[in-house]
């Protein structure tokens, strides 16, 4: 199912800009592109971007990059294709690279992955980044200014069989208002990880509270480790106390992986720190 995310990026012009730019809004397919191929195979997929009707004609430029995230998932890093060992960037071609999109029109970018004949098994990845670029014909104006332009990226994941999806849960911790799960990707392909953390009162068989863990991607390089954090429910729903905490994760295999431990949860105003 295609998930469309409406993006509204406010472009602000500082002092010297002669005409304040209009906010740019468009819709784009942000689903990751996942392809399973054989060595030597060529496969083509699409990325779509639809400019809202009330926009001005806008120029977009696409490029392929390598990307990865910090272990806590809060920062993304981009580099030229081939930076990572498991990059698919040098096998991907796109069309068009640069195009002007009219209001209400859709830009469809073909993404073709041409796999080498000799390639290791496992997962490879890169990203398609589409940037709004200032119109070349737009007057530069006088003075100094900053203009924010829209940029959107979609992950490209290429799997070559046999693919191993394996992960280990290394840690499970709670703080006053947050919980975190420490993971390691033990397989040969990036994993899409999601799940939930459940809090059981001592002796209870049904959880008092459970918190969904949003989907995260756990790569195999530059780091195999990742931390998924989540904000806990309010103290009314999950008061301070000792709990059996269980995490259950779906890593895209035919089974779930889980871990549990007993933890003391302190909430705001509690006299002591939570003890591991």
């Amino acid at each position: 199912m295609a998930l469309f995310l409406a993006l509204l990026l406010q472009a602000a012009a500082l002092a010297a800009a002669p005409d304040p730019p209009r906010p740019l809004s468009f819709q784009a397919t942000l689903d990751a592109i996942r392809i399973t191929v054989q060595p030597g195979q060529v496969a083509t997929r699409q990325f779509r971007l639809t400019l809202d009707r009330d926009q001005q004609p806008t120029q977009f430029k696409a490029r392929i990059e390598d990307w990865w995230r910090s272990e806590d998932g809060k920062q993304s890093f981009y580099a030229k294709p081939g930076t990572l060992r498991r990059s698919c960037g040098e096998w991907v071609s796109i069309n068009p690279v640069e195009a002007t999109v009219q209001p209400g029109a859709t830009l469809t970018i073909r993404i073709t992955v041409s796999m080498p004949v000799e390639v290791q098994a496992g997962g490879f990845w890169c990203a398609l980044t589409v940037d709004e670029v200032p119109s070349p014909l737009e007057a530069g104006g006088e003075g100094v200014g900053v203009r924010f332009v829209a940029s959107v990226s979609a992950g490209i994941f290429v799997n070559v069989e046999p693919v191993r999806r394996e992960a280990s849960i290394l840690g499970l911790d709670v703080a006053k208002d947050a919980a975190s799960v420490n993971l390691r990707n033990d397989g040969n392909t990036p994993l899409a990880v999601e799940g939930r953390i459940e809090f059981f009162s001592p002796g209870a068989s049904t959880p008092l509270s459970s918190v969904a863990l949003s989907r995260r991607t756990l790569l195999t390089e530059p780091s195999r480790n990742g931390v998924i954090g989540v904000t806990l429910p309010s103290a009314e729903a999950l008061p301070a106390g000792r709990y059996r905490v269980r995490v259950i994760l779906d890593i895209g295999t035919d089974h779930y992986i889980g871990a549990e431990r007993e933890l003391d949860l302190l909430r705001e105003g509690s006299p002591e720190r939570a003890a591991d």
Partner: protein
Amino acid sequence: MRPISRRPSALVLAIASVGVVLSAALTAAQDLQTFTLPKPPEIIAQEQRVEPMRDAAQLPSATDRLKFTIGMGYVQAADWGNEISAAGAVKGIQLQSAALLTRGSSGLRFDNGAVSLFDPDLKWRAELGDVFSHLRGASRGARFSWSAAGNRRPAIALYGPGRGTVSRSTILSYRDQLVVREQTVLDAEVATDRSYLVKSRLAVKRLDLEAVHRTVHTPHVSRDLSLFAAYTLPGGMTVSGGAFRSAQPNDRNDWRTVSLSLPLSRHLSVTLDRTFTATRDTSSHSSAAMANINAGRFRFFHRQQFGTFEREDFGSESLDRQHSQSAAAYRQGQRFDLALQMATQRTESGLVQHWEELQATASLTRSTTLRVASSVPDFDNRDRFRAWLRQGLPGQFALQAEYGRLSAFQHTSAFVEDRPRFKLMLYKSWNLATPARGAVVHGRVFDHTGRPVAGARVQLGRYHVDTDANGRYLFRHVPRGDYQLSLVPALLPADYAWDGRRVQLSLTPFQNVTADLLVAPLNSLHGRVYIDRNQNGRYDRDEGLARAVLHLDDRVTSSDDEGAYSFFNLNPGSYTVRLNTGKLPTDVEAHGTGELTVTLGDSEPAVNVEFKLLPKSKPIILQTLEQ
């Protein structure tokens, strides 16, 4: 992306189904215990459904289907019987077969049945068993028809003795039909016993005309001629009339009718007719009015007929006769159907015939169907009660029970009472996969240098397949029809462009078609805009001009901070790159016209398409100072 909202329920389901902890792999890291839980099969199935099957080729089926059924049964006070039927196709030849074999007091016999083979591509048909002929009627024999030049459909048939007739003659016939626009306009048949039939029909726009003449010599001598005409007026009103006359050695029949059909509304139509019939000893005139009401699930029909009936052998006695017939039906979806039919006939002599019947059909479950017919209101009249029950069973078995006046397995003697009987049959079906027939369409996708294009999606009608590493594609078993062969532009590898030229194919099953598709390789053009400050005629570091505007046809781009620019996804050919000199900084000027013509090849990008700029040099005008 799978909705995150579905996940929690899946996890809860998993836990509920498994219990507390299924510790397939229980390890301890400090006090952290890890485990695995099996994922419920329904969740796995759901995930597999969510996964798009983009790479799956959609190819014509390599097999046809043939359904073969055998039934064994018992008929009360009659015989055991076997029913055999088959329907489907083998190698493109359509097969229809049904036969009834019985074993009773008269031994094993082939009661009825026929086998029909039809080749829709070569237009031949073979029939064996009980075949029907306009010349011969229902007969047992064999017939073979084929398609011939001139829109003709000849047939040769051998008809054996008819069932229930004293004649033991066997005749050979030749039939020919002239077919124009799928309509048989002329149909003639002549047999070795000098019987013949000529039939002509012409249906053009609102007019429908048909004339039939038939002379038969065996088993009885007869001649008949019929004419029919109908004309539909604007508004849907139809006027029709017909006449029929037949003559046998000891009898004759005349029949003439004229009718007017009036569609009064979408739900109501009325038909008025006037009919005259006569035999050697009788004649009758009748007028009738019929009304049809069709209101969704409810349908109603009524016919009221008045007339006179005369019999010359009774001293030209004339009787007035009335006849009325009604039918109402109610249908509730596909599972329930109820119909009530009533007919009443009165004559002046007081003779009254009245007949009412209620029929109900209900699909009680997906595998159980019950059909019941009974007289109304005399429900306990066993002579008028009929019931039919079919129960589907696992393994493609079915049990069928009937009660009532059944169609006998074997002909009963006229002296045997035709009373309600019970019949029970057990059926077993097989759905067999049989080889399919079809055309072969294959070819290559390549560019004009001959390089194959792998991974291009080729579409043939509703089928599609991706090219292999050599740019080849193949469709087998393509059914007859008109097809458009094309590429799917959205799934053409990004390095190629397609001009949209489709190939039209009219395929017959035995064709082997080669059709190649040509695409254009795309390439790119790279260059730079620089200010040749040191006037050495080449780009040096820090000489690039940012935000220079460049045009190529209707495309426009600008140079980056190092003065580099690119145009991508270009077809091979000659291009003119134009530097927009009006957007240049005021202190530089283009060297030359500001236009460069570039020829882009098939396989390599064009590089070093460079625009040299020079600093504007203002002349120094020295002024002479006055002393």
